[in-house]
């Protein structure tokens, strides 16, 4: 291995999936110099998806599932600065300053600063001290302790997106009296088609979560009796605490200080480089150009964080790579596993494939004319894995056969033969 980086320092700000994987990848790909990983969160970097699921019902004292063991950071000679925030950056002198006054010089800087939950401007909401969001371990702990302390276990979730619904399902399973208030006419309005939203609405309703759509919260009032959530249609709901899941705002403060290009996140080129020399951005915070889709986007997912970490490490260690990974996501709610691959935006038609021999097992296939864009698979790992292959390889799919449950779900059956092309 070349030693050309041995006297250099790479600083990574943000130690979640993107940042923690980035430091490990840097070593794997031959970075010989110093690596410093910084995060305001004092925990050893941990898996985030279980925050809205298993972590909520976790015993006191149990630990969050680490991305890598503490020993691994030692073995790889990674300096951890956990529990510290970066107060300022100077891209001219290539240095950062921590909250304890320490100044650190860098040769390469990776911003993996993620995103923060948005609190909508609703009267009384930010003043209420029983309002929670769910982004990190401290948030999960706070929800857990509010839930334990809640006399009537009444929870109002504002926002029917994935975070809101996953948390609603978990709190319901823990015995909560859970209500979800969604401003749009249906849940998952921005992220899923009607077919999928209807399925999840039914799933939650059957499991005792009350979902109210087309309902805007006007005001939140807190008294000694508890919290009252007042909606614009006059309906009111009592709550012991509120969970807000209404989207996020990328954490661009440091990038802004350096004069990086910003536009719903930190703008990076196809190699994940910002406009500032020596500075890169990855994960939830990065607004990147995806060559596959020929458009700019920002993705909030484990896949995006992990795959961008690998690409940025390769670019920093001198083997240029373009980021063009196929996006995939998952969500677990009650007994349902939803797995999604590709991006469905811009689809012209969709095919719903139902496996009639199984309960709650189906998949939604999105097409732009004949091109398969994306697949959402519900309790259907087969559709997820096969859909991934088909999307990746741009396989032509026979839509008629796909939509017919009596036709076996097999790759060679579903692939369109050239002679059959309409």
């Amino acid at each position, binding site marked *: 291995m070349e030693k050309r980086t041995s006297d250099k320092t790479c600083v990574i700000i943000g130690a979640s999936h993107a940042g923690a994987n980035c430091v490990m990848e840097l070593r794997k790909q031959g970075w010989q110099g110093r690596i410093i990983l910084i995060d305001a969160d004092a925990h050893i970097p941990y898996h985030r998806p*279980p925050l809205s699921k298993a972590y909520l019902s976790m015993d006191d004292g149990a630990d969050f599932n680490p991305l890598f063991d503490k020993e691994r950071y030692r073995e790889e000679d990674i300096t951890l600065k956990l529990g510290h925030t970066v107060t300022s950056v100077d891209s001219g002198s290539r240095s950062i300053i921590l909250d304890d006054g320490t100044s650190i010089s860098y040769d390469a800087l990776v911003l993996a600063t993620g995103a923060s939950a948005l609190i909508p401007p609703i009267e009384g909401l930010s003043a209420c001290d029983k309002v929670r969001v769910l982004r990190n371990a401290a948030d999960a702990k706070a929800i857990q302790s509010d839930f334990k302390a809640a006399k009537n276990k009444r929870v109002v979730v504002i926002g029917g997106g994935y975070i809101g619904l996953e948390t609603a399902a978990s709190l319901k399973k823990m015995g909560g009296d859970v209500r979800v208030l969604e401003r749009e006419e249906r849940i998952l309005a921005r992220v899923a088609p009607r077919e999928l939203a209807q399925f999840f609405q039914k799933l939650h309703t059957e499991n005792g979560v009350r979902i109210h759509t087309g309902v805007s919260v006007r005001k939140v009032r807190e008294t000694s009796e508890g919290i009252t959530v007042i909606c614009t249609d006059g309906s009111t709901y009592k709550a012991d605490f509120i969970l807000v899941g209404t989207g996020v705002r990328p954490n661009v403060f440091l990038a802004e200080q350096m004069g990086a290009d910003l536009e719903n996140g930190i703008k990076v080129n196809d190699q994940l480089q910002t406009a500032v020399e020596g500075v890169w951005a990855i994960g939830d915070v990065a607004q990147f150009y995806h060559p596959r889709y020929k458009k700019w986007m920002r993705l909030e997912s484990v*896949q995006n964080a992990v795959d961008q970490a690998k690409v940025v490490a390769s670019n920093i260690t001198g083997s240029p790579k373009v980021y063009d990974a196929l996006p995939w996501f998952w969500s677990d709610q009650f007994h349902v*596993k939803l797995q999604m691959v590709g991006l469905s935006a811009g689809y012209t038609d969709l095919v719903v494939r139902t496996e009639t021999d199984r309960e709650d097992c189906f998949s939604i296939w999105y097409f732009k004319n004949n091109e398969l864009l994306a697949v959402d698979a519900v309790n259907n*790992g087969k559709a*997820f894995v096969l859909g991934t292959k088909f999307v990746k390889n741009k396989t032509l799919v026979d839509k008629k056969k796909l939509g017919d449950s009596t036709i076996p779900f097999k790759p060679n059956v579903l692939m369109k033969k050239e002679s059959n092309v309409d």
Partner: protein
Amino acid sequence: MAKITYITKSGETFEYEATSGNLMELAVKNKVPGIDGDCGGVCSCATCHVHVAPEFYGKLDAPSEIESDMLEFDDNVSEYSRLCCQIPVSDLVDGIKVEVAN
């Protein structure tokens, strides 16, 4: 205490002893090539696919429906395929050998 052996695509052998966790976590911890475990062990990503030595395959609890589904169309699937995040470390698997599938 269970002894676990991983054989990678390139034929390298990795041997470890463990008392808890699962075979994916143990492999990730020790940087066994070809096992990523991106989803953290919830059977969502299929990046921990292994072939279990036949004499051990039958000793394991049968795979869940979602695991079998994930494996059916995965690359290099065999009748001894498993997602190793679903194989807990226990005395039952002491001496097990698994080949990394991808």
